């Protein structure tokens, strides 16, 4: 698919970053990671030890650097040096708080940062990964369009088989994407009755079906006229300063 060829090139690093949290997110939030290889604690000084203990104590939420500075009460240069050392030894990591992007939290390397902190699986570096979402949506939509009617599992399997992405897209992820396609009014949910186009799907299974062509172009009658989208419509009166007689939008 053309759309993916370009996106793969553009967003590969981005997807690689996402793959880690996606795999991790399957377990509990505080599950310790096994694949990371943090440095040994014996090489750390007393300040680093003190800082690391506090960070570990905060679990998956971590601690804001400013709060940490206040807590350990070290001179700024010493504090910064200790933090750098911990980061260099891969014992802590910095995570931007989604609610306040200026705040950087320190989270122990063993912990998966909380969704509350990162914003969830669809966020990368504190920002919603819109590029990845758009491409995944496009791929899912095309898949449904080709299959006409499909279940979540069928779409997920097809995407996995086709190797569109270098990361694994879980069924849960695909479900979330399909739900946004339903909200976009691009596909609709139908329940299989086991006959006709649903012959291959057991009756009662929730399916996704693309909308008939042409139904997407429709516009609301109200928005076809200038008044439907005019921001001054609330102050528009027949004989007022803003009125249909003097409205400039009607001349366009």
């Amino acid at each position, binding site marked *: 698919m053309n759309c993916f060829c370009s996106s793969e090139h553009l967003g590969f690093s981005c997807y690689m970053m996402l793959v880690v949290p996606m795999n991790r997110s399957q377990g509990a939030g505080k599950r310790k990671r096994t694949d990371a290889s943090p440095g040994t604690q014996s090489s750390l000084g007393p300040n680093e030890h003190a800082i690391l203990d506090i960070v570990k104590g905060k679990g998956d939420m971590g601690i804001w650097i400013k709060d940490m500075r206040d807590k350990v009460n070290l001179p700024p240069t010493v504090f910064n040096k200790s933090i750098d050392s911990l980061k260099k030894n891969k014992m802590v990591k910095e995570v931007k708080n989604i*609610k306040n992007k200026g705040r950087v939290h320190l989270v122990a390397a063993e912990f998966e940062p909380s969704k509350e902190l990162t914003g969830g699986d669809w966020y990368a570096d504190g920002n*919603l990964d819109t590029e990845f*979402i758009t491409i995944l949506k496009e791929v899912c939509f095309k898949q449904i369009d080709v299959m006409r009617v499909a279940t979540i599992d069928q779409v997920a399997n097809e995407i996995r088989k086709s190797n569109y992405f270098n990361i694994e897209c879980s069924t849960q992820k695909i479900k979330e994407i399909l*739900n946004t396609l339903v909200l976009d009014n691009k596909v609709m949910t*139908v329940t299989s009755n086991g006959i006709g186009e649903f012959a291959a799907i057991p009756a009662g299974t929730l399916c996704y079906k693309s909308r*008939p062509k042409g*139904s997407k172009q429709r516009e609301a009658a109200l928005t*076809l006229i200038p008044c439907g989208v005019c921001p001054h419509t609330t102050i528009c009166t027949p004989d007022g300063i803003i009125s*249909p*007689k003097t409205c400039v939008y009607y001349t366009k």
Partner: protein
Amino acid sequence: MATRYGIQLAVHLISSHFGDLVAKVCECLLRKGTLTLRDIIRFTELSAQQVKNCLLVLIQHNCVQAFSTVEDGGLSESRIITQYMVIFNNIIHRMRFSKFIMIVSQEFDKECEELLEGLLQHGRLTLAQLLDRANTDKPEGKIPVVHLGGDRSRIHVRVLKSGFHRASCGLLCLSGNSFLMIGLSLTIKFVQFVECCPAQDALRESFNRLVNAHYVERCPASEPLLELKTDEAPSRRGAKSAKIARVVETTEQRALKAAAPMEAKRFLVVTNTGSDIHGKNTVDMPSNEITGEKQMKDEYMQLDGALGGAVCEKEVVWRANFEEFVLRLKQKVCVASIRAQYDDGAGVVLSAMLEATRGTERKIRGETSGPLSLNAIFEEVMKTEEGRTMTLEHVRSSLNQIGCKLDTAGPDQSYSIDLKNIIDTAQRDEVELIVLKRYGKEAFRMFRLLSRTRCLAETNKISDTALVDKKEAAKILYKLWQDDNVHMVRPTATSTSDKDLCLWTVNKDTLWKHVLDQMYHGALNLSLRTLYELEQEREILQLPREKRIGELGKRYERLRRVRILMESSLMKLDDSIMLFNDF
């Protein structure tokens, strides 16, 4: 639903159709509600005669209904008071007359179309007046009209039976108190069918077809008397019935109900060729007309004493039945909605179902179509051009697709369709499309989520489900809330982290009303702008065609295009208004 801009639009329609005086009386009734003649005079500050004339016009065009109520006089005798109520929907229907005519022209011939046009143009007409009007346009079918001056006591009119092949004579005796014409002059106008023409029978036939299709109905009673509401006996303590909330009927609803003719009489056509109000009928029946009906004593227009006495009419008065037209348009919208939502096959099946059960669903607010067996549906589908290629399995699949209910209780399995559900979906789609155009795709997604879940949702939850950036989601929701598209709830904060917690939902009732009001506003503006454009170029419109050349020709062409564009937009907008107000 008479919203703020709905009232303005109604007043504008009346003003452009009947002038400012009538519009003033209409506005007074729309804003103040049901009033007596004295109150209308007081509020409008017009003379009594002006108000009477305005009311006559409004009643003639089915925009106002009079009714009487008995007022408790305390120690003295109770007295009857006549009140006037405005029928908002009938005023708004005036802007969709072209649609009504289109329905008839698609189903029937040109003559039916002209008859309906006459009724829409004049509001209420007797059959004789209707036929007279239709014939005046055709030189070959002209009927001589004899104006007879007479007194109220006794008039003898020789009436020749109309019809080409049958001619009979009858003597019509009239009592002055029984038959009077509109107005205070005592000149009575009768049509004497001296010459017969072949067009007459055809016109009557067309009229009968319109009545049989329920597009034309008898007018309601001019001034029904509402009985005093007697207090019901207090129900038994703890009775189950007391716990059920009952819908209280307003006086206006009671008046409309009381005025409406009985269902059996509403679409009954009787042709009188000469009758005596005191004596027996002389009824001559064409093949599809019914005999034995007693002399109809429907009053044409009977206003209270202040209007100069009772005014009656010789014949039954007819008017266009807006309910039936609205029902037709509702069915068309349902079919179009299903076609857009699913496919043409589903549209064909629904259309066939509605066509086959046409007689059974007469109420506008009817929520479901009549039940129909699969074979009957298939038979009806086969009659249509698009349906000929469909198989029984395809029809069954489409019925399941559009959510038809299968009733297995009877001997034959029957299907019925929930029209209310289709209309609800169409309304929701319309509002969502407005949100899409005004606020963009992300707002559309979040709005759809809220309108479908119908429960309170937290900002973060919305942004997570709709995959919208959290900060952006909060901004969009706030903007939607500012424009009254969503409803915000701030729960009582139990901790500091809950301080900024906002819960959002879509309040369908208030939002739908708000959207309808915006549509009325848009329709009013379009209408005003069209009038303004025409007013600006009045000189060009008055020019004869041969003089519209060069620059003037271009200006005329521009005006023509602008008018077509605006009027077609108004018609489309009116479709949406009907979707929210009438269906």
